[in-house]
């Protein structure tokens, strides 16, 4: 398996507070990789660094061999590296279908396609994916009227619509109705297996991440603390210590 994302010694500080210190990790193509760590350990900062939300202080981030740290967010997204937000973000005044339509890949946009209409295949795919996340009956509702959990599912579907190579998911199950969590794990796995999307997932719910990921990285105080397969990480004394506050 080739490596799709290579993070090398990335550091990022806000003022004097170090959020990430020399974090290195890699995501192989086609895998589902987990990222865990206590609150404030710098997980979301790392995601933001990867997708170009802020400049990094040191280190390098390579996506399919290309250096990302000088590119801007939309450019990175157009290369097939997408993220979802912890505080879900959707287009509230547009309906679900419209939210999906505008999420098509934008790499081939030109001045010519700017004023074109979306063709049937796009709408068809949008409906298919809404079915995939169970939102099909709500497709004509305004996205802003959906519940938080439903918006989260919509955001996931929008990400799939974008056909990314690598998808960074920031706490995909937070705020989701517990009865749906098993279904969501299934959808994440299917997105990985059927659509061939590599997943890199921040997750607080241990049951979910242990079920989902094949390899897990654990951050604490901005530094990489441990890594390994779910069993190794679960039984790592340092990880347990970090979560209990001893680390």
């Amino acid at each position, binding site marked *: 398996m080739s490596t799709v994302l290579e993070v090398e010694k990335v550091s990022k500080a806000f003022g004097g507070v170090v959020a990430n210190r020399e974090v290195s990790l890699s995501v192989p193509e086609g895998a589902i990789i987990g990222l865990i760590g206590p609150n404030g350990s710098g997980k979301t900062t790392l995601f933001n660094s990867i997708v170009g939300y802020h400049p990094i202080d040191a280190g390098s981030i390579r996506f399919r061999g290309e250096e990302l740290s000088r590119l801007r967010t939309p450019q990175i997204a157009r290369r097939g590296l997408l993220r979802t937000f912890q505080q879900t973000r959707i287009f509230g005044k547009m309906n679900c279908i419209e939210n999906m339509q505008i999420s098509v890949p934008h790499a081939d946009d030109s001045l010519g396609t700017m004023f074109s209409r979306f063709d049937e295949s796009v709408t068809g795919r949008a409906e298919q994916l809404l079915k995939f*996340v169970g939102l099909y009956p709500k497709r004509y509702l305004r996205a802003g009227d959906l519940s938080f959990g439903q918006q989260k599912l919509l955001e996931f579907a929008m990400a799939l619509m974008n056909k990314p190579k690598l998808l960074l998911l920031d706490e995909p199950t937070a705020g989701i109705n517990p009865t749906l969590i098993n279904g969501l794990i299934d959808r994440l796995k299917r997105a990985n297996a059927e659509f061939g999307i590599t997943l890199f997932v921040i997750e607080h719910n241990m049951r979910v991440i242990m079920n989902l990921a094949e390899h897990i990285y654990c951050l604490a105080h901005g530094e990489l603390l441990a890594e390994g397969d779910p069993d190794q990480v679960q039984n790592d004394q340092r990880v347990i210590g970090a979560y209990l506050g001893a680390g």
Partner: protein
Amino acid sequence: MNGAGKTAWYLLLAVAALTLPTVPFLQPYLTQFAFLWVMILLALTWDIMGGQMGYNSFGNIVYFGVGMYTTAVVQRDLFFSVEEYAEVAGGVDAALNPLEFISSLALGMGLGAVLSVLIAAILGSGILGLRGHYFAICTLGLGIAAGEIASGMDYIGAGSGLVTSLLPDAFGERGRFFYYLFLVLAVITFLVLRRVYDSRFGLAINAIRDDEDKAEALGLHTTRYKTTAWCISAFFLALTGGAFGNMVIFIDPTDVAFAGPTFGVWMVLMAILGGKGTLWGPVIGATIFHVMQEVFWTFLFGWQRVALGLLIVIVVVFFPEGVVGWLRERWPHRFGEVVDEDARRLQVSLDSEP
């Protein structure tokens, strides 16, 4: 509204608009009706930015003024040298014959529109990087700076303004000529915007309005969309301004061309009054506002702007969603919005195979 009903409505409106100038007792008011089309154009072009894209511009008036001055200067200089013009001092000899008038008007409007689009593209790449209130206040400064600079430029008459070419008699009554001119322009603008909002572009600028960061995160070319939106707005606004200068005959730099405190604020108010971010909202808002404004100017002379200030406060505070927004809340299904209560309440299920 179903398709047939809609078509009937459009036809009715078209017939009414086309035959209005033939109604005898409306003859004296044709200039006011022409003014109504201008107001609709102002509101429609503002709404591209403010309503559909969420970039509330106070500076669109710049393009109105640029179009107006460009047209006036082209008309002034195309067939007369400046010295000649100074000799006759604006006398009857400087009047253009019909062919000269119409060709210079077309050329001037065209040049003004091209110039405005260029300005929008250049300014846009910088100013459209500002968000929210920074954008609003920056454009406010832009509009006023343009007026002040125009007031200091001797080439365009500086603070004492510029007299535009008179409409040759061959075109008949002035009010009627401009009535049809602005009617055509308003209809074209409306149809173009309707088509544009119905495309990928429409969804993209709506997405920018709802959450620009998210739009960027999805890979949209946000800068390209934003600049294009401003260019479209500038294009139609410059055409409007170009013809408007001919209608009012005299261009004052701060009271007519770059009239921030009047037209510049009115276009915002009209779009909000009618319902911003909707196709018909600006049209309805402009119509209501134009009637109100005529009433204010007739019955409250001297206090009309006090009333206007009060109107802005009242509309913004109590009625920010506008007429169309209010109607949509009341009868959503009439606006093609699906309000399926069953769908809204339905629990999402992920267990079964889709």
